[in-house]
């Protein structure tokens, strides 16, 4: 897997060298190079390492209560992992809240295993040897939804409320730069520098964007979940730090996940 990865990087570097003089063709060359780079890496995604570790963590008896997560209900019944992510976020009767995968896992780890929730949140984003159990668990659970169509419901009033709240947050301009999510993700065919931006109000773009998270980020050497995606967007938006698993973060996820309904889930993916 890693040999393939190294080969991919080398080839991609060659592809990315600008070889043609005019601006237009040099740019389309760069875009082609990036596409080729993705193709080369696609059949050797390091995300598999996170998935395997996550599966181990799911089944292992851990925490003060020495329990596995196999009784954790992700919405389709205790222990059912298959397809669970395609119906999240959703309303959970036992907590009376709409929860996304990360907040639900946090609930199970603190409740079933007796772990310290604050410590889990502090370590939610792994870095090198300081690995995040949350990222591994999310990798495993989401991998069990690969190929299954997104089907997020807003039948329950709390789910409706969450969606409506998420929509408002999407358009919420603030901070030193007056940015909202919509500033970068509200129009078709836009770029920041050379980075293509999905229009998350457009069905096709919304589907492609949401169904490719979580992802292994080559630039970071880490697997990142959707909570991280939102956290880092808000950082660049010049907002304060998004609280992990907050109602605001779940509402925004409900809005974006529901907009991806009908598309086959295709993650953990691989991104630059």
């Amino acid at each position, binding site marked *: 897997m890693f040999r393939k990865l190294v080969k991919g990087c080398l080839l991609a570097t060659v592809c990315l060298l600008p070889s043609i003089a005019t601006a237009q063709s040099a*740019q389309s060359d760069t875009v082609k190079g990036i596409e080729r780079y993705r193709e080369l890496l696609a059949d050797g995604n390091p995300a598999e390492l996170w998935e395997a570790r996550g599966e181990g963590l799911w089944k292992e008896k851990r925490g003060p209560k020495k329990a596995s997560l196999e009784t954790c209900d992700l919405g389709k019944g205790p222990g059912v992992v298959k397809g669970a992510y395609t119906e999240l976020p959703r309303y959970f009767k036992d907590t009376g809240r709409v929860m996304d995968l990360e907040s639900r896992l946090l609930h199970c780890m603190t409740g079933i295993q007796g772990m310290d929730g604050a410590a889990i949140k502090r370590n939610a984003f792994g870095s090198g040897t300081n690995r995040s159990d949350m990222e591994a668990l999310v990798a495993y659970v989401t991998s069990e939804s690969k190929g299954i169509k997104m089907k997020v419901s807003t039948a329950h009033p709390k789910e409706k*409320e969450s969606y409506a709240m998420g929509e408002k947050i999407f358009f919420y301009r603030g901070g030193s730069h007056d940015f909202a999510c919509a500033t970068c993700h509200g129009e078709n065919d836009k770029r920041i520098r050379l980075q293509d931006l999905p229009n998350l109000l457009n069905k096709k773009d919304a589907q492609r964007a949401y169904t490719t998270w979580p992802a292994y980020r080559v630039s970071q050497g880490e697997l990142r979940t959707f909570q991280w995606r939102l956290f880092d967007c808000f950082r660049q938006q010049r907002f304060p730090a998004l609280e992990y698993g907050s109602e605001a973060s779940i509402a925004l996820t409900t809005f974006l996940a529901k907009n991806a309904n009908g598309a086959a889930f295709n993650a953990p993916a691989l991104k630059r």
Partner: protein
Amino acid sequence: MRNFNRMLYVAGLALGMASAGVAAADRAQVAVGEAEVMREMFRGFNPQGQAGLSRLRQDDMQKFCSSPGWQKQKARVKQLEKEQLALVKYPADGKLLGSWEAGERVAQSGVGMQFSDAPGSVAGANCYACHQLSGTELSFGTIGPSLRNFGKTRGNSEAMQRYAYGKIYNSQAYSACSNMPRFGHSGILTEQQMKDLTALLLDPNSPVNK
């Protein structure tokens, strides 16, 4: 305990029915109120580095431009532009053109104001993130219009200098709900940096006009 649970269940059902009724009538009516959104925004973020929770507090422009359909409120749009224009502070020395070389560096830099940035670090304008400017910089974004040959096509008159400086200072003054930050109004750039950017746009020797 069992009774209590049942009470909760019945209350939940009643609530559910009420909400479902509203929802069926009109999705827009289900939309959560401004106060609830504000509450969850303030609960949902933590101050970090230089980004305090005050960043979440919206001024009139931010509030108005966050509501989809603002375009239809034509009178309010005009009024907002007038208000924002009145907030532009032009340099006391009357000089609006700085150095285009320095302006190019400001246009390239995306540093500043993020909670991950060192407090007090000099912010850039990151113009290239959204605009095409110099012909030799191929890595430019498309959220804003191309500014290629900005000065060449518009000239370098004093009125044009005031427009360019004012637009950089407060983009909302000329186009309400523009996506562009208000670099002067929000204290992102210094007066000198904005003069340098004005030169980058208008100086005949600037790569923008070559």
